[in-house]
């Protein structure tokens, strides 16, 4: 098991009901982590989600390490 810190923003933060959590997981990739959380929280359909690990954009196949900081990024709307 590894421990991952996850921070939620915007529509996902409101859906989950908190801004961050530490999760013990066996997920090997960020894609597996998302699937685990989607099963728990049943994320609403928000369109194309991206992911960042340790404040950099990553592919869904990126491996996870103990202590990683993960943010799921729903469609953006700056400007």
């Amino acid at each position, binding site marked *: 098991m590894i421990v991952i810190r996850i*921070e939620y923003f915007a529509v996902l933060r409101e859906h989950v009901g908190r801004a961050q959590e530490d999760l013990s997981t066996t997920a090997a990739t960020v*894609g597996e982590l998302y699937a685990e959380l989607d099963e728990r929280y049943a994320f609403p*359909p*928000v*369109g194309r989600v991206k992911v960042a690990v340790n404040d950099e*954009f990553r592919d869904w196949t990126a491996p996870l390490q103990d202590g990683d900081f993960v*943010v799921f990024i*729903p*469609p953006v709307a*700056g400007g």
Partner: protein
Amino acid sequence: MSHFAFSRGPFTPERYRDLVLDPVAGGYASFEGWVRNHNDGRGVLRLEYEGYEALGIKEGDRIVAEAFARFPIARAHCVHRLGLLEIGDLAVWVGVTAAHRDAAFGACRYIIDEVKMRVPIWKKEHYAEGDSGWINCEATSADAPAGSVPP
């Protein structure tokens, strides 16, 4: 220093304009994005911007660096508001200086277009009817292209 910043409170372009002054510059182009009172045919009362600041500053700075690579400009900077905004408030400012105006206009346009598409900022509109919604995040499952979420 990053060429992109967030502002948690109201700001004026004058506060940041000095950052793009340069003796080689013969022109200054800027863009101001304001909060408007309608969107998609609905009355808007106010809105909220939420940002993932650590990544947003990196991505915004990368966008300005791309503008420097694409256009012969002197200086460029972008500031985006976060928090609760009222109608007419300044939401985003881009300032670019260059020896000649074509580069300043082009780079200014490039920066605002890319910031809107790429920087992790989310906008929640509060409507006249009392409801609210996160812009671009109201997709249905059918809207999501294949592979949009991990397998």
